[in-house]
């Protein structure tokens, strides 16, 4: 009798707890939308980086785009910079990285990002934030004033992404939104 009573308590307990646990798991369609949103933010960043690095971008535009690009990141994030000419990887604060990028000592700069994809899927953390890692490949080309290619490399970088559900009031009503922020951008490897 004791065993049956225990089993019943156990089953009823599961019935009470099950719906609450289910709420913790994201609907696959919603998960896909959030995955895509985070990937899109990284693609946006790639376009911002191309614009900031390009010598054809007017100074005022480059500065405005730096502001937008900086907003994609969590405060305190760092971006790694590598070179085939030195072994160490230097890490800079986001703003400093973009300002250095704008002032690179080439007459023409081409930056292209490709193979942008998840290397580590978004995972829910105890505080409700989803954290994942997106890998990108960056092709960098620097030209001198004669138009000759003087430096090029391809760098694999990992970007940590943080996605959190937030709410804000707009027009007198509460709007639930997914806030995507990028974290550190780490250099994984650099090749010619």
């Amino acid at each position, binding site marked *: 009798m004791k065993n049956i*009573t225990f089993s019943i*308590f156990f*089953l009823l307990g599961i019935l009470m707890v099950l719906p609450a646990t289910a709420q913790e798991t994201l609907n696959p369609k*919603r998960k*896909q939308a*959030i995955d895509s949103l985070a990937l899109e933010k990284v693609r946006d960043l790639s376009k911002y980086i191309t614009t900031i690095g390009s010598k054809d971008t007017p100074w005022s535009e480059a500065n405005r785009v730096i502001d937008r690009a900086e907003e994609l990141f969590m405060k305190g994030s760092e971006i790694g910079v590598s070179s085939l000419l030195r072994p160490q990887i230097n890490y800079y604060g986001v703003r400093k990285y973009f300002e250095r990028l704008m002032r690179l000592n080439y007459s023409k700069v081409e930056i292209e990002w490709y193979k942008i994809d998840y290397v580590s899927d978004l995972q829910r953390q105890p505080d409700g934030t989803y954290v994942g890692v997106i890998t990108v490949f960056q092709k960098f080309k620097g030209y001198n004033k004669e138009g000759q290619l003087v430096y090029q490399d391809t760098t694999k970088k990992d970007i940590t992404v943080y996605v959190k559900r*937030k709410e804000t009031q707009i027009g007198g009503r509460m709007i639930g939104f997914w806030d*995507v922020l990028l974290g550190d951008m780490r250099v994984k490897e650099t090749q010619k």
Partner: protein
Amino acid sequence: MDTIKSYNIDDQDVKDLIVKVGDKLNTEKAEAVRKAEEERLRKEEAAKKQAERAKFNIINEKFATIAHAGSYDEADKEIEQVLQLFATPDVPVLIIIDQVDGVNDYDRPTTASRFLNYLKDIKSYHFAVESVKRNTEGKISELELIKK
């Protein structure tokens, strides 16, 4: 639940728990009925919105023009013109990334001015106007877009 009840267990704790679970299941059933009705209304609303979207073609075309402008100057001129449609440059712009169970999931809210500059920077318009709120002067006071 019926199987557990059929045991007729003479234990007050079990009886109390059965009542609690019964209440919970009833609440969940009522919730399911409510959700089904909400889903029906949502579908009805979606069909209505689809018809309304055709009215937003002009706005969509203007946004696409900014995204595909040939130069920064050209894009800036377009932005200046399009901003005239808005009550202020700070009018909220909401971007729907997904719709689940009749609830919209949004990207981080932005403003008209920032959104138009975003189109200039990204050089792509992959949205559609979902709804527009206007003030008494007919200017846009809130814009809702959906990702395509």
